[in-house]
């Protein structure tokens, strides 16, 4: 169950990162912004944020 939640967090974080990269490539390319989005730290921070918010024990309604 925790593994499923962790995987969902990873998928969400990747989807958000890819969408931000898309927007960056389509719009004005701000200096350094694309590099930041491509970094290991960026995706890890999003994964952490999602796990922090959605880990089942912190949101019991998702356990059903």
């Amino acid at each position, binding site marked *: 169950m925790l593994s499923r939640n962790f995987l969902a967090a990873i998928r969400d974080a990747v989807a958000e990162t890819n969408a931000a990269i898309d927007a960056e490539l389509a719009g004005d390319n701000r200096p350094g912004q*694309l590099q930041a989005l491509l970094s290991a730290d960026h995706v890890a921070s999003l*994964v952490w944020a999602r796990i922090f918010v959605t880990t089942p024990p912190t949101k019991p309604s998702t356990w059903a």
Partner: protein
Amino acid sequence: MGAHLRHDPANETLDLGLIGSAMRGRYPGLVTMYRPVESIYDDPLLLIDVSKPVRAFFRAGTVNAGGMLFGTDKIIHFINVGRIYHIRYLDAVSKGLRVHEAKMHAVQATAANPLLSEDGFLGLFTTGIRSNGDLAADYAGLKFYRNLSEPVSIGNALLPPMLQREGPYRRVVVQEEDTVFTRFVSAHWNEVLNPNTYLAYVGRRVRIVIGSRCDDVADWFRDGRGQPLDATWFTTWQRQLSTFHGEPYGHELPAEHPVSVADICPAPAQAAAVARTDTPLWWGAALPPRQADRLGRNALWWAAAAGRTDDLELLAARGAVLDEPDIDGETPLHAAVRPGHVRMARLLLSMGADANRATRQGQSPLLLAVAGGHVELTGLLLQAGADPNLQDRFDRTALQEAAQRGDMVLVALLLDHGADATLASRHGTDALQVARRAGHGDLLDTLRASAPVVRKLGTAGGQAVAVSIPGAPPGVDPQALPQR
């Protein structure tokens, strides 16, 4: 309360979720978390930690994940301190440090932090405890976050990155839904196996409490024959867990008389008896035939687990119940099948044991036999009438287990006895998909060829609804079955 829960993943909140009605409904009859009435740390901590009187009501419970027992506080360490380690690791890498140097930097920099360190405000300073298990969970968290973008090793296993680069984008390639977290869990998190260090007076109190619980330890930790494990076994674990598969993670333990089970608990009485008399005793030998122990296991159950066929016949003659399940719903037949005792399983079946009885997790003896790779037992159970299409609580089938193992013999055996390759688990994966994901391409043709002509979709108006599957073998008329 909802907002509070979503933004406060402390282990107190985590524990509330584990014992909540949703969890109890999802796993009826199962213990989702164990929390003793008296905490081992209550007395010493009440002296120095002002939060303890409140927190005493919300202590970290013990859970089982990936076969490992650990406190729920380890999950919080894994998620949060693991990420702090990761930030420091990346910072060190960006400054040119090599991977092993950067890992050490992350461990040491956090250890030097007066707030976060196990020696600091949230550790030894307020609680009197320096937890090696917490440090191991922190380090495992670092492995998890690193593994998003780079390969990491866990012992001899090299885990490929969970994400792959495709041009400027990332793609999630990790597929093992059930192991994304649990493959990072290890025995290091279990504080019985990986004991802590304590401030002197806290340690004295904990030593007394551990001493009063040696019988419980003997109950929980047993060898393959059901014998309580001795101090040597615990000492060996202590030594092994002092590093994370050879990598330092900040572990410290006094060389002389650590506050540990190995140092405190005497050798179990029954193990000592074996040494004295050289008599092959087995756990449960002293139980009357109709009496069960705290795990709900009677003497016959233990005889089955130990593969002692002579004792089984004797106990059955004295009236022991053949299919009496333990608290997990495992019968003596499950107990015999799990370690692969063919003679014992044959004897139980000949005496009338139920080949299709499921555990509380819904696992049939056949599912256990296949999961363990026991070909002869699998054949024996199928001949005895075991249903190859029984599904456990997660809707997994024996065929899916065989596909996961990549075992062509087991797959063929199950298919010969009518296993349905189209049955899917709760995650929506059937045996074909399991084999494909596990990289067992040699199984795919066999499984495809075995797909039945029709797949039941449910019922409508009391009549079965079915559809034909393209590529069905000739000679079968889907029209003969009720159609939607």
